[in-house]
């Protein structure tokens, strides 16, 4: 009987399901300010997703919003997984790939997982709020977002599914010979206690420098020079592992190791100078897929990558030696966006990589800016500020937070094991999903704030309009047409780095429908200072349209026919306007 009733229930559910797909009955919900209240796609933002999980979510979003999302694989990872990208814009308005583009990715370091969820949250938020929220609607009418939730899908899965620390693998999954003994990845971590995390090993030792905290058995206390020890001493033996290859060392050749964020083609340096570099710039299939995509999309004007942790909004230069690349005009724009970010992301600091973090070559943000002239930030997600919403380092707060707010879920208690080299040891410590990855209940907030920061950044990509066209009659059947092209956002169509090296082609401002006698750039209208373009005056080549500024152009034309002015800017978009 019971069995039959269950079948009946399931059938009923199946029947009802199509009606209820994703969304809840609208009478059952009430909008919380700023969040989609009845989304077509239901996603839990208090947990993390594997690479397949992210791929499935991106497919759901794309399927639910066919007019807003095009999903494509931009390449394959080293292990052959697709690198999924969502191109999000209002496809019914304008040419998608001609709109100013914003590139966004996460998870280049495989253990730095939040970027995947923030990317999905951003895609979800944009699509679910289109036509619900004016700011988002305008954003998708005028801009396109290229969102790649994970650019390291292989090792993202390794981090989640295999035993790791909170900081491993970081690398991708291509095997390398770290100790130069001719073998590849032959001595990785070993999950002695089988908890899925690589925690720490300790051993009772009369010569040890630690004791167990008598008030909290999770904690170890370092013995100071004047301390009188009356209890058992311990020593630390490093991360969980055994000497797999018999060379007298433990965990000396783990996954990789290389750092995908040292593989980018701006001032790249080899491993002996820049630890973590692989063979040559874009020698990894994942970074190369991104580079090829970006090279093929000169409309990308802003970019963001997500890492963890520490609560940082980072800009370049990565390396001290590259200081000259970042010039003053561009730093002013970085500062304006970065400082806004500090306000939007409490606990985060706006910093410069080479002086505030480390001096490093071959990073993603440097390639985007140095090589492509794209304003780019890297955010280091999550900071200890989040634990109790206050600044300051307190060693105890992670233990307190685990106990008080995570119900002890983040710590594997110490337990005794036999180790082949060390004999009787104890294994325990914080799990891999704690310390760097945002705890579940805070993840949606962290995703939202970081997304809002990228929106602010994307909002300030160039936004061009033909704000004024004036006509003046001249003798001899000639006419003077003057057009004003306005950019009402912070970013110019060409960053100063771009102008220095002519990275992106000039903007073309052209007139059609009339017989052009002469064309010129008006550099000072009041004093009639102009620069004539002798060749092909109908299509004026303008080096730059500045941020929060205007460019004025003038043509001397013959006749009085209807004309159209077209502005064609790689990073500023394509627009035209005709006279009446």
């Amino acid at each position, binding site marked *: 009987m019971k069995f039959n009733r269950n079948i009946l229930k399931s059938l009923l559910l199946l029947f009802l399901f199509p009606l209820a797909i994703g969304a809840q009955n609208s009478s059952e919900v009430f909008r919380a300010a700023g969040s989609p209240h009845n989304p077509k796609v239901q996603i839990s933002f208090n947990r993390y997703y594997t690479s397949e999980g992210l791929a499935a979510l991106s497919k759901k979003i794309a399927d639910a919003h066919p007019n807003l999302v095009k999903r494509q694989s931009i390449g394959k990872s080293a292990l052959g997984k697709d690198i999924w990208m969502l191109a999000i814009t209002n496809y019914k308005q304008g040419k998608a790939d001609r709109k100013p583009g914003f590139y966004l990715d996460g998870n280049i370091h495989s253990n730095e997982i939040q970027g995947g969820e923030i990317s999905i949250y951003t895609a979800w938020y944009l699509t679910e709020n289109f036509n619900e929220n004016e700011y988002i609607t305008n954003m998708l009418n005028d801009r396109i977002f290229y969102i790649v939730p994970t650019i390291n899908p292989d090792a993202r899965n390794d981090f989640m599914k295999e035993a790791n620390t909170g900081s491993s693998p970081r690398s991708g999954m291509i095997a390398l010979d770290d100790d*130069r003994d*001719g073998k590849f990845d032959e001595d990785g971590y070993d999950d002695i206690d089988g908890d899925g995390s690589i925690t720490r090993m300790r051993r009772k030792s009369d010569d040890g420098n630690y004791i167990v905290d008598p008030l909290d058995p999770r904690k170890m206390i370092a013995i100071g020079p004047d301390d009188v020890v009356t209890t058992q001493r311990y020593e630390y033996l490093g991360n969980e592992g055994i000497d797999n290859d018999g060379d007298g060392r433990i965990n000396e050749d783990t996954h990789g190791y290389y750092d995908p964020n040292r593989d980018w083609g701006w001032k790249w340096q080899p491993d002996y100078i820049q630890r973590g570099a692989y*063979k040559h710039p874009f020698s990894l299939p994942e970074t190369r897929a991104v580079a090829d995509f970006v090279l093929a999309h000169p409309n990308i004007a802003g970019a963001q990558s997500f890492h963890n942790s520490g609560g940082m909004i980072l800009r370049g230069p990565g390396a001290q030696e590259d200081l000259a690349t970042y010039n003053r005009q561009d730093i002013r724009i970085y500062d304006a966006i970065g400082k806004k970010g500090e306000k939007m992301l409490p606990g985060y600091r706006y910093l410069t990589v080479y002086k505030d973090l480390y001096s490093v070559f071959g990073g993603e943000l440097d390639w985007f800016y140095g*090589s492509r002239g794209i304003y780019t930030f890297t955010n280091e997600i999550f900071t200890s500020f989040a634990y109790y919403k206050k600044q300051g380092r307190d060693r105890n707060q992670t233990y307190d937070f685990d106990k008080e707010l995570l119900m002890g879920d983040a710590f594997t208690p110490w337990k005794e094991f036999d180790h082949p080299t060390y004999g009787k040891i104890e294994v325990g410590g914080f799990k891999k999903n704690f310390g760097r990855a945002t705890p579940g209940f805070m993840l949606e907030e962290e995703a939202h704030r970081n997304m809002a920061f990228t929106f602010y950044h994307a909002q300030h990509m160039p936004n061009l309009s033909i704000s004024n066209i004036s006509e003046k009659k001249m003798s001899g059947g000639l006419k003077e047409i003057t057009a004003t092209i306005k950019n009402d956002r912070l970013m110019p169509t060409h960053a100063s780095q771009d102008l220095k090296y002519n*990275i992106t082609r000039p903007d073309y401002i052209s007139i059609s429908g009339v017989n052009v006698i002469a064309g010129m750039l008006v550099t000072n209208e009041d004093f009639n200072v102009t620069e004539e373009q002798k060749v092909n005056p109908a299509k004026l080549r303008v080096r730059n349209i500045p941020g929060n500024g205007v460019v004025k152009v003038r043509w001397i034309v013959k006749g009085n026919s209807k004309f159209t002015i077209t502005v064609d800017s790689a990073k500023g978009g394509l627009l035209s306007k005709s006279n009446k």
Partner: protein
Amino acid sequence: MFNKKRASLFFIGMTICFTTLQISAQSDYSNYSKLTQKIKSLQKSNVTNAKLEELTTTIGGHKIWALTLSKGKAENKPAIAIVSGVDGSHILGPEMAINIADNILKNHVNILEKTTFYIFPNMSPNATENYFSSLKHYKNGNAKKTDDDRDGAVNEDSFDDLNNDGLITMMRVEDITGDYTKLKDDERILVKADINKGEKGTYKLFSEGIDNDKDGLFNEDGKGGILFNKNFSYNYQYFTPGAGEHPVSEKENRDLLSFLYDRWNIFAIVTLGPENNLSTPLKYNASGAKKRVVTSVLKQDAALNKFLSDKYNKIIKAKDAPISKGKGGDFFQWSYFHFGKLALSTPGWWVPQVKDSTKKASKNKVVNYLRWAEKENIKNAFVDWTTVSHPDFPNKKVEVGGIAPYKMLNPPYKMVADISKKHTDFIIELAKMQPNITLQNLTSEAVGNGITRISVDVHNTGLLPTHTEMGKRSRWLRKIKVAIGLNKNQEIISGKEIRLLNSIDGDSSVKFSWLIKGNGSVTLEAGTSHTGVDSATIKLK
């Protein structure tokens, strides 16, 4: 009855005859198809010791060949890679590479017992084809479409053969605002006027062509392509014509590196190209060597370079080579600074200095070349200035002329065989010096109570160190591994089962000893991929 068999034999005989004739009659360098044919026939007549692979096909549809010379398993022996055609105007390189391979197989085949050679005859086939085209001009890039002047238009202003001589030379315009003047030594040659010597410019000088896109520049964006020798990561010249959008962007560059990174046995790379550290060694610069981004050869490597350079000069017997350490993005500097291998490079040939009646050589390279060409009776070295009418200079006197392309960089073909032979001799010398790890003075003695003491000198019998100083830093050279193999009933009392050594200098050794408890025998092994591996089985006492 007509004997079919005999007829076909006769036919084969004739073909061989013709082929031989053809080879001996070769009077100029080999184009892509001729070079390909030569490589293939070389491999076909040496199937046991030569293996031919297609490394890749370039964007222009040319195949890049990788020829491996080895007796037995190639990867089991220390290897020398020879890379040529790195620069498209250096036609000599590919020809030398084939000849060197041929010489090794014909005259030095025993060297293949101990050394493997990986030979890449031509890395710039699209570029070298220009030498053979009806319009000869330097164009060193591959077939990728590039916007050389970064103005948004592609290939909009190429060279134009204004005097219809099949060569792109120079173009001079008589103009009082110009900066150039005639050189006193040889009035055919224009040099920049030096106002400090009271000279005034009377000419403008351009490469031969028309300003097709009317931007005021001549020939600034033709079919440029990306240059193999500008596309590597060391001191890469961003945003310069021919460099590409990022280092190692091109297939041929990428696939060559993949090949080299996979061959752990390579200890030296010889580049046949414009860079030169063989006739003149690189100089050590302390401040450059100490920087994080190293810009000078390291101290020990400079000494090694000097030693090898002396050897080279003794064999080649040519003086006064131009110094050229590479212009950035080049393969030679990559092979040292970014790969850490023993890196050697030579153009193979350069114009000898010619002294005039006062026994002085000209400081001007072109003057020197023209004197040499005259002495050697080389025809058409200089295209005499002739007046042309030029659309961009309607009321000016415009003349086209100058040194013929390729001539100064490549010797007359008849010299190639001798140059190749001498370079083969040097490469054989280099192979004989290769690092070679051996076990020496191996002893085992009874300590008592079932314990044996094993002692050994791990010795590099080669003259070359196992690792360059740079190579010690590089993760792409393995360390020397000294490993002792035990069975379950044996135990190490003292000493380590596995030891890794950073390097061993030439003709030097490192001592090891172990105390082993147990009976039976143990194995001992020392070396790594690029040094050779020596092993022994030792009976416990």
